[in-house]
């Protein structure tokens, strides 16, 4: 009997452990493993409200279980149960206690709400301007004179003040591990601040239905040491003002020519080119092709063959490139680097 109980207890503990380990998701993506003060404050509020609510739930379940067992109709039971009208005492109890519990929740709700609603100027926080597009993200650092897309590069342990808008439909900017989301509304600007407490890569997502490829509107947040970030910003700025160096191989030079002819109308590189598509200045540094596929030659070629197949409804047309052209483009684009990231 005893060993039976023990093995059940072990099984229970093991199950609980497995649940907690798998139940919190990936550190890079999950709101349950906060990686910065904003996400931590939000996680604290979640824990507080969830604990109060689970307490209420346990009370409800205890009463329900008791009632269902104790007062089920037994065979042969006759007679009419007492018809109780109500009880003022009980009703006051279950009006007042929830009210008090709500006050416990309300206080940190108000304080955190205003803490998160603060706006920081450029002396207090790094300013980043986010513009959402169908289905990619544009990031500008107005005080640094740097502009990039898809991979948001941030310094560790520093507040970042975002100003967000959209170029087309509504989107929502969400980096669960660093903090909650805010909508990007066309024609309007929203503000939000975040901070990362550790370096590494975090996953960002669009959280507002924005069209066919809403699910694929992912981005990455690359959090660097502060000096690394400063160096990155310097290099980006340098590249954007200088003439790009000619690529080394003949194939890449050919790729560059194709790029200038077919791509530059929409995609900027080193300060030149259009703004309809993502800026590709540091394309080869980025984690992903189009935010979703691993950034390697194979996947980039796949993207160039048919962008609509990989990300339905996006604004990039199929350029009908030959395999040779794709090959040259891939080689050229792999030279678009500004940093050596340690991964």
């Amino acid at each position, binding site marked *: 009997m005893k060993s039976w109980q023990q093995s059940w207890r072990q099984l229970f503990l093991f199950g609980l452990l497995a649940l907690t380990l798998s139940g919190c998701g990936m550190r890079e993506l999950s709101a349950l493993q906060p990686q910065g003060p904003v996400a931590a404050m939000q996680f604290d509020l979640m824990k507080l409200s969830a604990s109060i609510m689970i307490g209420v739930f346990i009370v409800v379940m205890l009463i329900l279980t008791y009632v269902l067992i104790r007062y089920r109709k037994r065979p042969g039971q006759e007679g009419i149960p007492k018809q109780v009208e109500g009880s003022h005492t009980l009703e006051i109890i279950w009006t007042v206690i929830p009210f008090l519990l709500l006050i416990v929740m309300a206080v940190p709700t108000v304080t955190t709400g205003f803490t998160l609603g603060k706006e920081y100027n450029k002396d207090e926080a790094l300013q980043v301007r986010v513009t959402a597009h169908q289905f990619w993200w544009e990031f500008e650092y107005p005080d640094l004179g740097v502009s990039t897309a898809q991979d948001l590069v941030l310094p560790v342990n520093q507040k970042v003040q975002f100003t967000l808008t959209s170029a087309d439909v509504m989107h929502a900017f969400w980096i669960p591990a660093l903090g909650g989301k805010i909508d990007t509304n066309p024609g309007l600007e929203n503000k939000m601040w975040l901070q990362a407490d550790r370096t590494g890569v975090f996953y960002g997502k669009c959280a507002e239905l924005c069209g066919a490829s*809403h699910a694929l509107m992912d981005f990455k947040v690359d959090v660097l040491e502060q000096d690394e970030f400063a160096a990155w910003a310097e290099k980006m700025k340098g590249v954007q003002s200088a003439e790009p160096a000619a690529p080394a191989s003949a194939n890449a030079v050919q790729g560059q020519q194709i790029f200038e002819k077919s791509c530059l109308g929409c995609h900027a590189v080193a300060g030149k080119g259009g703004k309809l598509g993502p800026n590709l200045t540091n394309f080869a540094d980025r984690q992903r092709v189009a935010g979703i596929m691993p950034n390697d030659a194979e996947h980039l070629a796949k993207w160039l063959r048919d962008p609509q197949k990989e990300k339905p409804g996006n604004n990039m047309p199929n350029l009908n490139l030959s395999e040779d052209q794709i090959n040259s483009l891939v080689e050229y684009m792999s030279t678009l680097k500004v940093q050596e990231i340690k991964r």
Partner: protein
Amino acid sequence: MSAHASHAPKRSGIADWLTTVDHKKIGILYLIAGGIFFLAGGLEALLIRLQLMYPELQVVGAKTFNELITMHGTTMIFLAAMPVIFALMNAIVPLQIGARDVAFPFVNALGFWLFFFGGVLINTSWFLGGAPDAGWTSYATLALNQYSGFGIDFYVLGLQIAGLGTLIGGINFLVTIINMRAPGMTFMRMPLFTWASFVTSGLILFAFPAITVGLVLLMFDRLFGAAFFNPDAGGNVVIWQHLFWIFGHPEVYILILPAFGIISEVVSTFSRKRLFGYSSMVFATALIGFLGFMVWAHHMFTTGMGPIANTLFGLATMLIAVPTGIKIFNWLLTMWGGQIRFPTANLFAVGFIPTFTIGGMTGVMLAVPPADYQYHDSYFVVAHFHYVIVGGLVFGLFAGLYYWWPKMFGKMLNETLGKWNFWTFFIGFHLTFFPQHFLGLMGMPRRVFTYLAGQGLELGNFISTIGVFGMTIGTILFLVNAYVSAKSSKRAPADPWDGRTLEWSIPSPPPEYNFAQTPLVRGLDALWVEKMAGNKGMTYAEPLGSIHMPNGSFLPFIMSLGLFIAGYGFMYHNYVVVGIGMVITFGCMLMRSLKDDPGYHIEPDEIEEKGVKA
């Protein structure tokens, strides 16, 4: 139809159903139409979950997926949940207050046909160039011409037509409940389901105009080139959200309050006890309805309203937990000290309590704006509102259907099948939606047609899809049950559950005039009062006399058909078709206004004859 016909012009078969103004038959029409739309919405849900079973699947494409989620939400809320609620309201409310019909039987039929044609119009989009794909909330910008297809026009026009039906249905029930109560049926003696229907109808009256305004503005933007929501032309994209949620949040209570009413009736009957704290239950219902209008912006915490508005709307939202808590504890205390029986109706009611409590709990969690920045538009929200709408409303509707089926159809539903129905649906439901709370917190946004492998989202999605099969089996078992019951020749007794309220004092199904003699109500739980006084049935407030009945009419059907036709005219910019449709509709209105229709009478000898048969 002569002016003083004493006999109904008998129509049979399909003509009878197309012309009926009898609230009981309209209730069945609502149930059948709502049921068919429920199956369509369920099929869409099944496809959604199959697509998300594994990462990066290609069961349906990205655009089709967005059409599926849009149609699933729109269908389930407007075309399945609301009509089935109206089915029960129609079938039961007049009986519970001792009335012979609703206040405006003709308008009642018109409400049904408007809803029906609106719903059909939206669903024809599947065959006419693609369904709407901007989500059931249809947020402008995405719903504007530049960014979405033709499908949104079906949403805009179909919902206006269906919404008109709902609005006049709501007004009809307000008037009915205020004016048609039997002698002695004071407001504070009305059964809780009638109270809930009353408050819900009030909410419909005030909430539906808001979405109608929104839909009209969106229609002008889409069809006639206006720019209310177009930022490039000076429009504002956030206004749609406000209009939508000023309707949308009360809509949640429009849906859930009738379920609260049903649970109150079922729990009380099957505990053989009067409802604990009746007056506080009534007060809580009204308070929830009132507060429901004060909190719409909690759907918009991430829109960028700023911390002051967010905090105020958050705190107001939390307050709703108090009356909701009162209800849950009153149900528990109703069972306390009773003799609880567990037919399927009560299984659903008892299953409702923990399930809805979880939905309410996550609701309070969502009312904390800073935490909501994480929950918002993630699968956490999907889990929350399915706990409320499926775990709350649909469980309540199943409880109500199993409870009132004998009264509506005169046949019992099979209890063994019913128990299988409950357990498969209950387990399937929790398997489907419980893991979604965690998926949301682990970083899965809602309305995504796929998710990438290796982001820790595989297991939860897989379990969730498995759960859907349970819910599917449960729904199929219900259909089988309805079929078996229809085929069986066994007739249901007038009062199969030892009922407490007026509807159980008359035969199942009730005769067309409901009450041969209007009953005299002598207390809360009118029938129970008589039972306790040792009486065999109700005492009557009038002698047996001739009963005035309304005539059936084709006009509601044709009037709605006219708007249906005009809807296509608007969408295809074909103003001849618009004209034809409008002529039909306004012609019917003119006919209705100019032609006297005094109805007919059923004489006492006929009633006695029928009374013997029933």
